[in-house]
């Protein structure tokens, strides 16, 4: 072993006056932090194992526990910060790539927080959403640019493959494998109840979830796990995953240790074999290859399903989006770099990509300039944290948003960012049956429904405030936004004026 240079990052503070030694902390910690000392007749903890997931804190009936960041410190150094030093220790010890999960914790600007929303005063009326009609229904898909008529001169209205959303919020892709069966079920049940969609991610669709098909988006990623005609036809739409905000340009890798019976069956790969999703689709090396896959999927589903192409927000995203809009895709999903992941190399998560706000603004602008905004719907994700983020995204030009981290938080995730360990104490990012059962989908889906219902109310309130009673009227309505503390370039990219202007 040698010397371990790393000091445990957290301390477990147990108020022994309150602790009744019920041992729920011990029973519920998959990291084996807590134990009961028979001699001392009291609970103790090994904090070096703690990941600060708060399971014990949340369940402690007497609130005898809290977890604090250790104040153990290196000599202060603004350049060689603690995390920098510790990362070097880790790599020096292991020789491994630093792996991390969830969205980046680094301090990058969050543009959502630097935009303010308008409200009507005097000159045009605001609307009371509780008592007056207020519409948030959204259709996603290609809008035909030409009017065609039948023999009797009636307009032919068949617009193939439109996704109807009662709320402009969908659950974005998280594969069965990266998250648990119960997490998936929670999402599926909630999407069903809310009239929106959840996304299988790239891990295939468990046979139990075919019943939620009409609220399901099935994903086709580079590994093509669980992809077959029945799967493609099971959902309401097909998403081609080209990239993910948290890890643009790289693939995924679900270790063989997580490929149990069910996942093996769902992904259709041998038990305990690694599930490797390469960085690229090895049949898409150019834009016309994307078109080839888009139409391969349309052919396979007889042109009944809209095709979504999901890409990570990267430097030339507007160019990429323009290409996609011309590739036959019906919907473009853009995932910003603050988006989450079950596991990604930390350096990539923290340094690659661009914020979704800027990506969205420039894509929407570019597609409009090129006159092809109607070719596609735009869905954005990558850290949508609240209804006001949703409002801002739509005002910048999105048709709808994808949420994932917010959804997981609603399911109990405490953002401890150790998904890759497979020991998620909240039953979300784990395949261990004992942990998986901690997430009762009945409870989980109810939380999701509550969250989105609440958000929808808030969206309506804010729309009402702007005097808007239909979500279409907000889409791309950038006059409803003002920047605060942003410089010229940022305002220009966002296409908004500064507060006060």
């Amino acid at each position, binding site marked *: 072993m040698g010397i371990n240079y790393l000091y445990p990052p957290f301390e477990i503070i147990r108020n022994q006056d309150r602790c009744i030694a019920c041992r729920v902390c011990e029973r519920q910690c998959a990291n084996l932090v807590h134990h009961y000392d028979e001699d001392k007749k009291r609970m103790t903890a090994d904090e070096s194992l703690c990941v600060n997931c708060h399971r014990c804190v949340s369940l402690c009936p007497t609130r005898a526990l809290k977890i604090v960041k250790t104040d153990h410190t290196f000599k202060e150094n603004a350049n060689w910060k603690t995390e920098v030093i510790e990362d070097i220790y880790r790599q020096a010890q292991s020789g491994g790539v630093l792996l991390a999960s969830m969205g980046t914790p680094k301090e990058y600007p969050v543009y959502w927080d630097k935009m303010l929303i308008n409200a009507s005063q005097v000159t045009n009326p605001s609307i009371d959403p509780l008592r007056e009609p207020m519409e948030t229904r959204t259709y996603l898909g290609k809008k035909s640019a030409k009017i065609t008529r039948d023999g009797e001169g009636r307009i032919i209205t068949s617009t193939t493959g439109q996704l109807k959303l009662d709320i402009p919020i969908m659950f974005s892709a998280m594969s069965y494998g990266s998250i648990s069966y119960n997490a998936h079920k929670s999402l599926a049940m909630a999407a069903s109840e809310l009239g929106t969609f959840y996304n299988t991610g790239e891990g295939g669709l468990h046979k139990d979830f075919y019943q939620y098909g009409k609220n399901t988006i099935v994903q086709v990623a580079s590994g093509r796990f669980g992809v077959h005609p029945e799967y493609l036809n099971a959902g309401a739409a097909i998403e081609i995953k080209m990239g993910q905000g948290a890890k643009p340009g790289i693939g995924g890798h679900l270790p063989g240790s997580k490929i149990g019976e069910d996942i093996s069956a769902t992904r259709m790969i041998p038990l305990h074999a690694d599930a490797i999703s390469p960085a690229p689709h090895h049949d898409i*090396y150019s*834009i016309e290859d994307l078109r080839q896959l888009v139409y391969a999927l349309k052919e396979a589903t007889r042109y009944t399903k809209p095709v979504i192409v999901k890409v990570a927000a990267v430097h030339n995203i507007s160019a990429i989006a*323009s290409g996609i809009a*011309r590739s036959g895709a019906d919907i473009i999903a853009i995932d910003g770099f603050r988006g989450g992941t079950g596991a990604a190399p930390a350096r990539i998560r923290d340094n690659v990509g661009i914020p979704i706000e800027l990506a969205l603004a420039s894509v929407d602008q570019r597609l409009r300039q*090129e006159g092809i905004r109607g070719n596609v719907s735009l869905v954005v994700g990558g850290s949508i944290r609240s209804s006001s983020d949703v409002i801002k995204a739509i005002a910048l030009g999105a048709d709808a948003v994808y949420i994932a981290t917010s959804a997981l938080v609603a399911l109990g995730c405490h953002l401890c960012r150790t998904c890759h360990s497979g020991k998620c104490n909240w039953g979300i990012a784990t395949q261990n049956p004992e942990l998986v059962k901690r997430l009762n989908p009945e409870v989980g889906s109810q939380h999701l429904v509550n969250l989105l219902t609440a958000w929808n109310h808030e969206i309506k309130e804010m729309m009402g405030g702007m005097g808007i009673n239909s979500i279409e009227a907000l889409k791309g309505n950038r006059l409803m936004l003002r920047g605060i503390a942003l410089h010229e370039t940022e305002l220009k990219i966002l296409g908004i004026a500064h507060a006060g202007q």
Partner: protein
Amino acid sequence: MDGCHQRIPLEGAFRNSSGCAISGIIDRSGKRFTAREAITSISVMHDRSNGLGGGFAGYGIYPEYKDYTALHIFYYSSEAKRACETFLEEHFDLINLSKIPTKKHPAITDVPLIWRYFVTALPTKLSFSQLDEDEYTARCVIRINREIEGAYVFSSGKDMGVFKAVGFPEDVGEFYMLDEYEGYSWTVHGRYPTNTPGWWGGSHPFSLLSYSVVHNGEISSYDANRRYIEMYGYACTLQTDTEVITYMIDYLHRRMGLTLEEVSHVLAAPFWSTIEQKEPKEREEYSYLRNTFASMLITGPFSIILGFKGGLMALNDRLKLRSLVAAEKAGRVYFASEEAAIRVIEPEPDRLWYPSGGKAVIVTLDSMQEGEEHGHQLSVSAL
């Protein structure tokens, strides 16, 4: 510039990437033929383009002017034309000038002024410049394209010409009435830009002097290549992959005097692990080229067909991420992104093969040189 181009970011104002279809035909005997077969070939690959760019390069098409540089120029305003012609008159003898004949085509719109000049360098200017004629011409072309707004030279070789537009390539062929030109080789390109409404100048082939390149793919090394090549007086005004590839070939082949095969060892240098498996002599050469011109290594998917005086070269990236098929029938050699695009004009070739990644296939009027590994041979006949 017309209104459209002012509203939309210009090609060259941003990094430009695209996917495509390419095709090329050469008759090694030097026998000349029209662009019809090239048009037919590219039309089979309609789905690989999106109508935002198409173009042709024909070699041996101006026999009567074969010693003169043929400049093909787009003008977006009469001011630009005036300014450009003034410049040309200052630097060249203008032997002949005319509008390039076109035919109205419903799918080809926003047509600029398209002019053709047969020129030769003014001897005084040339000698004063202490440059050879090619370099002199090249610098003039680059200057026009960089400095005269609204004028764009898109072809500047001898006894060859590039014809391109915004549209599907088959329509572009009809638009330029290419049935009426005859050459010993043709390349053609169908464009699928990912980011632009298309600009005439941005269509392919891209050409400098007698080099023309049609290209399929998007390279990842673009800015490393661009910033390096710009040291040598090139200006990548279009910010397209094809442009930088053309300049690199011009630099390596014309200015550095590398053979085309050696050029391919720079642009698509093999992996070090592959180089290390070669014979010592070869290994040294490969290592030298890769090392010396390290910044001209192209990575990312590409397949190109280079047209040059007297030949064609086809080259794939070293991972062969783009499709490229070659075929031979009697004296004719065919290249295309898809087999069907060859079969449609030559159903029964003598030989058909996929060149290996990074292995150039070089065909000239008197010889043919393939990469040292022949790639993968295809069955010519199924039965």
